[in-house]
């Protein structure tokens, strides 16, 4: 790595397939990225783009079979999670890496009190006593902005609203002071005003605790407000990667461009007509020797059908550090993108 500090998380050539009766589905295809301490990496993509499966693969949370992590390395502070035994991995999950899932309604257990669920990782991973864990649980609930925390500890999930439950989920993920927090569409199921509350909370927690965050979403608006760097996924691959301002100011991949034009704005002139990405997201079975976006791309040419483009840097920095894009228009032979 050319950077001075070492990345806290370094994922290299991760490949996950699902074995089904209809053949193999290439859900994650040679995905590489890294996460620096204290950084917020945004992951954008539609359903089926492989963004959640990638993150689930990191912690081996996918049921196997049908999932099969074919190859790759997931280095957390230098140790490969994919090579760990079950016990070693269990010591990482929840302790070193916290996970916040999309739906706060279904990811809390309805028959246990919140206190129980927050204290579980503290007792398991941090070997705290119940009293210590209880004190820490109250601290955590206060940290995520839940008033009257001590009383709330003895309540059940159904006594909390959606936004409150998502705060609790965040508290659980933060319980053991993880180095990395993975948030998988944590605000998608929430209303906009509640979403704004949670986003503020995360920004605030990041300032206070300084952990690295991976934020998965399909909402470019959310990403624009919080991320440092963004990777755009499509068809199980990273198709574009850039610092957030660069990505929004200078999107290069046809998919990123189309996506940005397909959403209406709340300010500025009203668009006469929304730009449409024709067609449907790809079904990821079969060979991988073509660009996954080709069927919907306006700039498709013969090479797109024959070769799956690799990520290429367009700003001189190594791939993964600056702005890079996986599109044949950026191949050296085609330095002049027709759509620039």
């Amino acid at each position, binding site marked *: 790595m050319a950077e001075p500090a070492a990345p806290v998380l370094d994922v290299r050539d991760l490949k996950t397939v699902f074995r089904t009766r209809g053949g193999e589905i290439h859900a994650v295809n040679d995905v590489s990225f890294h996460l620096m301490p204290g950084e917020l990496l945004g992951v954008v993509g539609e359903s089926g783009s492989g963004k959640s499966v990638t993150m689930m693969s990191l912690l081996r949370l996918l049921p196997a079979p049908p999932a099969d992590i074919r190859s790759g390395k997931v280095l957390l502070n230098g140790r490969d999670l994919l090579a760990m035994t079950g016990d070693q991995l269990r010591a990482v999950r929840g302790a070193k890496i916290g996970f916040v899932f999309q739906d706060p309604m279904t990811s809390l257990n309805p028959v246990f009190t919140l206190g129980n669920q927050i204290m579980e990782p503290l007792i398991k991973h941090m070997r705290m006593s119940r009293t210590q864990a209880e004190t820490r649980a109250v601290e955590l609930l206060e940290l995520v902005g839940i008033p009257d925390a001590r009383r709330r500890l003895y309540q059940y999930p159904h006594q909390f609203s959606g936004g409150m439950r998502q705060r609790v989920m965040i508290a659980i993920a933060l319980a053991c002071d993880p180095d990395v927090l993975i948030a998988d569409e944590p605000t998608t199921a929430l209303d906009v005003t509640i979403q704004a*509350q949670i986003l*503020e909370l995360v920004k605030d927690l990041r300032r206070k605790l300084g952990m690295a965050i991976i934020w998965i979403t399909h909402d470019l608006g959310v*990403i624009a*407000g919080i991320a440092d760097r963004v990777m755009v996924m499509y068809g199980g691959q990273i198709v574009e990667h850039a610092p957030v301002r660069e990505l929004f100011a200078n999107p290069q991949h046809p998919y990123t461009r189309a996506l940005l034009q397909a959403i*209406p704005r*709340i300010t500025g002139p009203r668009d006469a007509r929304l730009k449409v990405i024709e067609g*449907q997201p790809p079904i990821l079975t079969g060979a991988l020797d073509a660009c996954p976006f080709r069927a919907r791309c306006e700039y498709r040419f013969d090479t797109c059908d024959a070769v799956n483009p690799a990520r290429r840097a367009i700003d001189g920095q190594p791939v993964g550090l600056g702005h890079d894009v996986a599109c044949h228009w950026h191949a050296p032979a085609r330095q002049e993108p027709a759509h620039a």
Partner: protein
Amino acid sequence: MLDAAPAPLVQVQNLKMHFPIYTGIFRKHTGDVKAVDGVSFDIMAGQTLGLVGESGCGKSTVGRAMLRLYEPTAGRVVIDGDDVAHLAPEALRRKRPTMQMVFQDPQASLNPRMSLAEIVSEPLDEHTDWTREQKLERVYELMDQVGLNRRFVNRFPHEFSGGQRQRIGIARALALKPRFIVCDEPIAALDVSIQAQVVNLLEDLQEKLGLTYLFISHDLSMVRHLAQKVAVMYLGRIAELSPSKDLYAKPLHPYAEALLSAVNEPDPELAARRNRIILKGDVPSPANPPKGCNFCTRCPKVMSVCLTVKPDLLEVEPDRLVACHLYTVAGSTGASEVPEHKKQTRNQQGETR
């Protein structure tokens, strides 16, 4: 608003939809969930009214009560000259073809055991005495209109993607040539790249067929794109009803302002500069709304009068209706004199008067 050039096709007056709460062993009627509590608006023929608000604010209930999928508790819903809320059953049945609905979840609103042809022609079975051939011809026509390949006619819902399923739902709604369609969050369940396809389709159909829409959504930027007029609902009541361009340029009701500021701007430069209003707390339960203004528990500009008196929806600027004490005489509802000081009240606070 009297005698404006385009006539309203739809007029909703003081619509109320209360759901009774029964408790105890004798199922005693102990209260009501006031899902919709006195909502009024007009929709001009050929136009779109956007109805926005957070989940639980009663926006879907308005749409359903208007089409009499619920029996409204009170109020009038005049669609094309008939008061739908009080039509007798047979007359209502004859009225149904003119008003249709597109539902949120295309997965749940299509019968998985029926083929596309059966789904789209079901309204025709019910309301026409056409032959099989005539119906099939109409199904093909509708499939062309919504952009579905004719080869798919005998396929079942599970064989379609989300966007295609929503097209089937739209084709079904169009089958009887309605004049008014309630679109209840038609794009909420779809991916971003598919949303634009469906929205453009709805716009094209409106232009071609002269349709009038009530577009219910929580997506404020999409509503801005589609609607000429927007009603912002909060806890069963309309907080603000304004032309779309005015509302988005300068929201008057504090809730509308907060809601707009909460929308995520897909532009990092703007997002960094914007000053967002973060509302505290959650929406109160509609079974037990606050005594005064419904928004008083979360309002950043709350005054003492807000805690006791429910504000009426009044015209505070030409064509802009707002239910907020900031725009009336401080301390009284002052309904009669409101039009007088509409210009002054532009400066945000109630004290300006």
